[in-house]
Structures are given as structure tokens and as C-alpha cells.
């Protein structure tokens, strides 16, 4: 279980997160927010990629806020697949094992679930966008992290492809029973993947019950920002 409490972060004079808190149990939680709302910053603070100004991050009751990313036991799937171009698919997926993270059993199970057996020896640049995303997900899952953090990994894909891939991802994540934080600006995308939802607005996180509620709040937030800009 992950508990992020009172996270604050400023970049210069810009306050991005202000006392933001979120709890994730054994579920897929979507954190929805408009562009620039601080959702990726929040995720990167949990991953240890960005340091918070204040707050606590507890992973299975252990405070990891002072730990570097390599010691946090989190899986990270970034916005772009960010595959290691000089390694083939298999070497990419097994990368965590170089540092003693994961097992061959987990590797076998994940490549089976994500249907990657036939492309193991291909180079990342020869793969389609859909397969690159699958490899990126597999690479984060093989080390068997305590939580998986996904930062809009399908944002560059078209709607048709997303509609095919997201249910696949959901079924894999459910089988592996791993807690997931999925960050997106798109409530529809969240609905296809997540069990429940939270929105991020004005640097704070609010739990919502349905994707429709999230959609309404996001719409209000966009309209408010638009009016401010007028």
C-alpha cells in the first residue's frame, strides 16, 4: 500500500503541489488532471526522480521519501517508452535483473501475458508504438515492484489503438495484483483502465467516485483556467 501525505513542491515561484495526499491499496488508481496540473510531478516524487519540498511517501508503511529511485522498489512507465536502444527487447525487459530485481519466472509470465514472445530478439526501433509500450510495461513489471507508476504511457497513440491496448493492460495488471497509479489527462482513458479515480487541481488531490465526476471536475477546471486567461 502506498500513502503519500502532504506533498508540496514549488519550482521557483510556481507552486505545483500543495499538501497533496493520496492513498493506493491493491487497486488501479487513475490520477486525472489537465496539462500542467502537477500530476507527473506527483508521480515522479513518488518514484524519487523529483524531490519533494515537504511531505511523506510511505510504501508498505516504510517512509521512502529520502531514498534514491534505485532503492524505492517502484516500477516506472514513462510517457514515451524510453526503451534502451542499444539493447534488444529481451535485454530491455530483463534489465532490472542486472541489479538483482525480479526473476526469470516473472519474466516468463509477463512476456506470456503481454504477448511478447515473438519479438524478444528485435531491436526497439523496429517495433510499432503499441509494442514499444508493451515492452516498456514488461520492463517495469519484471522486477516485481511494490507499486507501478504509469505516466500517460499511451498519450502519443491514437484512440483506436488505446481502446485495444488499455483493456489488455488492465487484465495483465489485475492478474499480477499490483497496485498501480496511472496518471492521465483523459477521463475516458482512465475509465478503460482504472478501478477508481482521483483528480488533481490547484496542486491538491481529490478522490472522486466515478469517471463522470472526474470528467465534470476537469471540465470545470479547464473552464476556470480559460476564464482566468481571458
Amino acid at each position, binding site marked *: 500500500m502506498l500513502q503519500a501525505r502532504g506533498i508540496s513542491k514549488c519550482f521557483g515561484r510556481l507552486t505545483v503541489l500543495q499538501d497533496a495526499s493520496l492513498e493506493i491499496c491493491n487497486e488501479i488508481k487513475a490520477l486525472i488532471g489537465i496539462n500542467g496540473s502537477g500530476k507527473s510531478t506527483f508521480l*515522479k516524487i513518488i*518514484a*524519487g*526522480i523529483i524531490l519533494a519540498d515537504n511531505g511523506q511517501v510511505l510504501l508498505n508503511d516504510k517512509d521512502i521519501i529520502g531514498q*534514491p*529511485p*534505485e532503492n*524505492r522498489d*517502484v*516500477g*516506472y512507465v*514513462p*510517457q*514515451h517508452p*524510453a*526503451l*534502451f*536502444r*542499444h539493447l534488444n527487447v529481451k535485454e530491455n525487459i530483463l*534489465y*532490472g535483473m*542486472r*541489479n*538483482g*530485481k525480479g526473476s526469470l519466472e516473472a519474466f516468463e509470465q509477463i512476456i506470456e501475458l503481454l504477448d511478447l514472445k515473438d519479438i524478444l530478439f528485435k531491436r526497439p526501433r523496429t517495433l510499432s508504438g503499441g509494442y514499444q509500450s508493451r515492452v*516498456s510495461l514488461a*520492463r*517495469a513489471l519484471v*522486477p516485481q*515492484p511494490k507499486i507501478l507508476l504509469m505516466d500517460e504511457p499511451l498519450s502519443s497513440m491514437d484512440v483506436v489503438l488505446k481502446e485495444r491496448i488499455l483493456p489488455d493492460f488492465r487484465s495483465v495488471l489485475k492478474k499480477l495484483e499490483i497496485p498501480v497509479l496511472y496518471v492521465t489527462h483523459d477521463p475516458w482513458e482512465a475509465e478503460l483502465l482504472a478501478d477508481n479515480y482521483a483528480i488533481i487541481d490547484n496542486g491538491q488531490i481529490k478522490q472522486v467516485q466515478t469517471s463522470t465526476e472526474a470528467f465534470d471536475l476537469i471540465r470545470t477546471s479547464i473552464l476556470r483556467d480559460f476564464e482566468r486567461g481571458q
Partner: protein
Amino acid sequence: MNKEVVRIFFLPLFLLLIVFPVLALVFNLTTEGIKATLVDPYFWNSVKNTIIAALLAAALGLLLAIGFAYYHLFYRNSVVYKIANLFNDLPIALPHTVAGLALLLAFGRKTCGFLGETGAAFTLFAVILAMFFVSYSLAARTLVSGVDQMEPEVIDVARTLGDHPGKVFFRIVLPLMGEALFSGFVLGFSRSVSEFAAVIMFGGNMPGKTQVLASYVFTKVETGDLDMAVTAAVFCVALSLLIVSILTIRRQIYAAS
């Protein structure tokens, strides 16, 4: 209008100030000069010295530039990085005679330098150090630009997969920077080949010992053997064109891939 300005000013000036001086060298080649130079053992010795010293200086420069790129990537706010960054720009602004003098005082014989009495001055080793001193910053800048072009997410992912900064750098960053490493080495090599002032100050100009192509040309002009100086100079131009061509072809291949 802009096109006309370019045509009127750029082309004539480029032809007059860049192409014409190079062609002037070629047009001044004489058969006697070529023959005399090609049988001169000091010429071939200076070619050998130039290539060996420039290769070693470029390799040393690349090694240090890799260290600088590491600091640039992970410790940009550190004092070490800030000082190193400041010193990186120094060889560009500094007269190279000053660089040579500084090296002479630091590593020369019977000086007040803290590493004086090393006996390094006026040896091929001094030539290598002088070439390295003036070419390192080019390699460092090239590698830093290579690091800046990398997707930051690649590094972030490697960190979450258990790599500490050192591991990320050697397992992920360096293997993905092949092009920058190659360019850094070739630019460092070409800058080393062209160095004269720092080399002559610290390494001297001893024929057969520490003389390099640049100082060979200088000596031949000084002693009035202009034909031989021209031949050696054209050889330098050919060598430089070869280096630049290798770099260009390699960049085209990389861009195509």
C-alpha cells in the same frame, strides 16, 4: 532581398578569404619542393609525431570529457562541476602561448611549478599535454551536447530499475552516445593536429624529436625553404580534409539510421 544579400556578400567573401588561401597553397606546389620534402626524414618524423601525439591527446581529452559529461548529467549544482565548466571555456579565450607557458611552469624543468623537475618539458609527452590542454574543451562540449540530447526518461527508468548514477552512465548513457563520443574524439584530434603555439612553448620544436607538422612548416618558412613549407602545408590541408570528411560521412550515416 535576403537572397541577393547572401549572394553579393557571402559567396565572394567566402571564396576570397577561405577558399583562395587554400588554393594559393596548392598552386604554389613545386616538383622540387615535393621531392625534397618527401625524402626529408624530419618531415616524416613530424608527421608521425603529429599523428601519435594528436591521437593520444584526443584519447586523453575524451577520457576527461566523459568525466565532465558525468558531472554535467548528475551533479550540475556541485562546486566541482561549476569550476570545471568555467575552465572548459578557458582554452577558447586564452592565447595558446599562455597555455604553453602555464604548462611549462607547472610541469617544466627547474621552474617554480608544483610539479617542476618532472623532466616533461620539451619531450613528446609535453607535446601531447599541450595538444590535450587546447583540445579537451572541444571534446567536453561535444559530449555535453550528446548528454543533453538524451531522453531524460531513459535515465529515470534505469534508476527505478536499480541503477545508481554511475551504473546508468556506463550501462545506458555512454553506449547511447556513440555519435557524440566519435565526434568528440575526432574534433579533439583535429584541434590537436592544428595546434602550434602551446606545442612550441612546452614541447619545443626539435626536428626528429618534438617537431610536429605545424612547427615543421614554421621552421621551413623561417629557414627560407618555402617550397618544402608549401608541400608540408598542403599535406596538412589534405590531412585536415580527410578528418573533416570522416566526420561528415559518419554524421550522415548516423542521421540516416
